[in-house]
């Protein structure tokens, strides 16, 4: 038996539910030799800003128990270079491209989107709202529902394409921010971004990362991500969700779908195994076949609850 692996995130149809997570698969072509992006549901680009960004001084990464902390500082080539040097080939290969966008002001977000709107080949936008809003005194967009609603509305005005907002697990009110994003016009919510964390070098008596803090990702965070996906699905049952956090196996994907995600993103697993997204897709196919599932969509939100 073969399972229909296609899925939909709102209006966007995907060949399968496996996407790559922003910041872990470059701009979509970097690992094409090891993991052809056109065979995935889609790729999410490294976060793009209007201008190229240099990022943080190293050390930027540190391994932890079943996880890692990163403080890359949103280094990227800028939207112009992406549209010029990368997007045409992604388009030619038929890759479903989600552009991850960030900026320090709503205008900066809009600038990235406006530039992409001039090109073909972008399937959707994902707003990374875990970055500080300079005009609002450094408060992260994703931590304040009002700020987030207005940011989302501003971006909504820029495009007719699907607009996803990526929620921060560090926000004081996860569901409130999710609702705010939907109120602002988001078509889907993606969650979770990394959890604020820290590693200390006990001999040097310093943080390991030059920035002190960073974001925790990897299998360690999966139980938290799964809980958050289910909570947001429970609160906003009609909002499409894209699940992220520590996905390593096809069975992990099935868990996120059951919790209410319509698709998932694979992040840190790519660092362990650059072909992980494809491997995971194969595992998910075999899991579905083994369970007699004819269409992977059957799993979405299928968790039996209360138990």
């Amino acid at each position: 038996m073969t399972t229909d692996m296609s899925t939909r995130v709102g209006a966007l149809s995907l060949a399968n539910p496996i996407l790559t997570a922003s910041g872990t698969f470059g701009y979509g072509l970097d690992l094409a030799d090891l993991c052809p992006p056109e065979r995935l549901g889609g790729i999410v680009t490294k976060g793009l800003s209007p201008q190229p960004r240099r990022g943080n001084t190293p050390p930027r990464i540190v391994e932890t128990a079943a996880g890692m902390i990163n403080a890359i500082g949103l280094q990227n080539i800028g939207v112009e270079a992406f549209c010029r040097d990368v997007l045409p080939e992604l388009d030619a290969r038929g890759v479903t491209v989600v552009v991850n966008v960030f900026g320090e002001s709503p205008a900066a977000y809009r600038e990235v989107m406006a530039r992409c709107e001039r090109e073909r080949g972008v399937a959707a936008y994902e707003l990374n709202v875990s970055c500080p809003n300079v005009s609002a005194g450094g408060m992260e967009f994703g931590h304040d529902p009002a700020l987030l609603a207005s940011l989302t509305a501003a971006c909504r005005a820029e495009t007719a394409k699907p607009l996803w907002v990526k929620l921060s697990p560090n926000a004081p009110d996860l569901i409130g921010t999710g609702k705010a994003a939907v109120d602002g016009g988001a078509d889907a919510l993606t969650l979770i971004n990394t959890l604020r964390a820290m590693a200390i070098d006990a001999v040097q008596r310093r943080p390991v990362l030059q920035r002190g803090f960073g974001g925790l990702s990897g299998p360690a965070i999966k139980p938290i991500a799964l809980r958050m996906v289910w909570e947001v699905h429970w609160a906003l049952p009609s909002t499409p969700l894209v699940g992220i956090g520590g996905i390593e196996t096809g069975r992990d994907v099935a868990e996120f779908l059951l919790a209410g995600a319509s698709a998932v993103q694979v992040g840190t697993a790519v660092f362990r195994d650059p072909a992980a997204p494809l491997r995971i897709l194969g595992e998910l196919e075999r899991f579905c076949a083994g369970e007699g599932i004819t269409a992977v969509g059957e799993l979405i939100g299928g968790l039996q609850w209360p138990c």
Partner: protein
Amino acid sequence: MIARRDLAARVAIVEDLTPTCFRLELLCCEPVAASPGQFAMLRCAPGLDPLLRRAFSLAGVRSTGDGTIVEMHLKEVGRGTALLRRLAPGAPVAMLGPLGNGFTLGIAPGQRLALVAGGIGLPPVLFAAEMLAAHGSAFDLFVGASTAGELYEVDRLAAAAAVVGGELVLCTDDGSRGEPGFVTAALQRRLDAGRAYVRALACGPDPMLQALGRLATARGLEAELSLEEPMACGVGVCLGCVVELEDGRLVPSCKEGPVFPVSRLAARWRA
């Protein structure tokens, strides 16, 4: 760049080289084309501990009847290297590589390279020496270690140098073998004595590389340094392993390196 692949390798040999270092040879079924300076990312254990692969320089690649043997030299410093040291022959090890660039080995007739290694920086330098010897390109070898017991593969080094009439200079910090003191001082003495090199190729601890960067810059000698940054992916997508360049840019050393000409690097490598 040579195509990257995740090779299903098996342990052929694990054997001690010194009290702290060991040789790991992996057997792959497929041919592997690699240059000295390139590295591979090894998964140290099945499962999630440790989560990330570890980077190791290639010390050599040779064909056998069964496939290709990829040689590495590891120093046990933590969990990953401890797990690899305990592997039995036949154990499977996922190996992604070869990755990164390599040293610039090409020289014109009459020219000579200086190969400089410190500690566990030897693998790519040994690989380069054996490849240069096979091509008949001239070089001198400067190999340093903390103490005599930590010097290893001296016969292979001597044999490679001998092929091209090169000098093998051994140095130990404690003077227990070879010239006492640092390899860079030994190189400096040769330069002072008028020996000329078209380029120095080096791998070793940061202070050694910085000393070499200073020396090379002062003497107008080209030098390439193989740097060691913490890596998560090894393939250019996590941006964890960045190195600062002359122009202030931060570039992933797994992709644009690990070998960099000193002149491209930020000033701290030269000052």
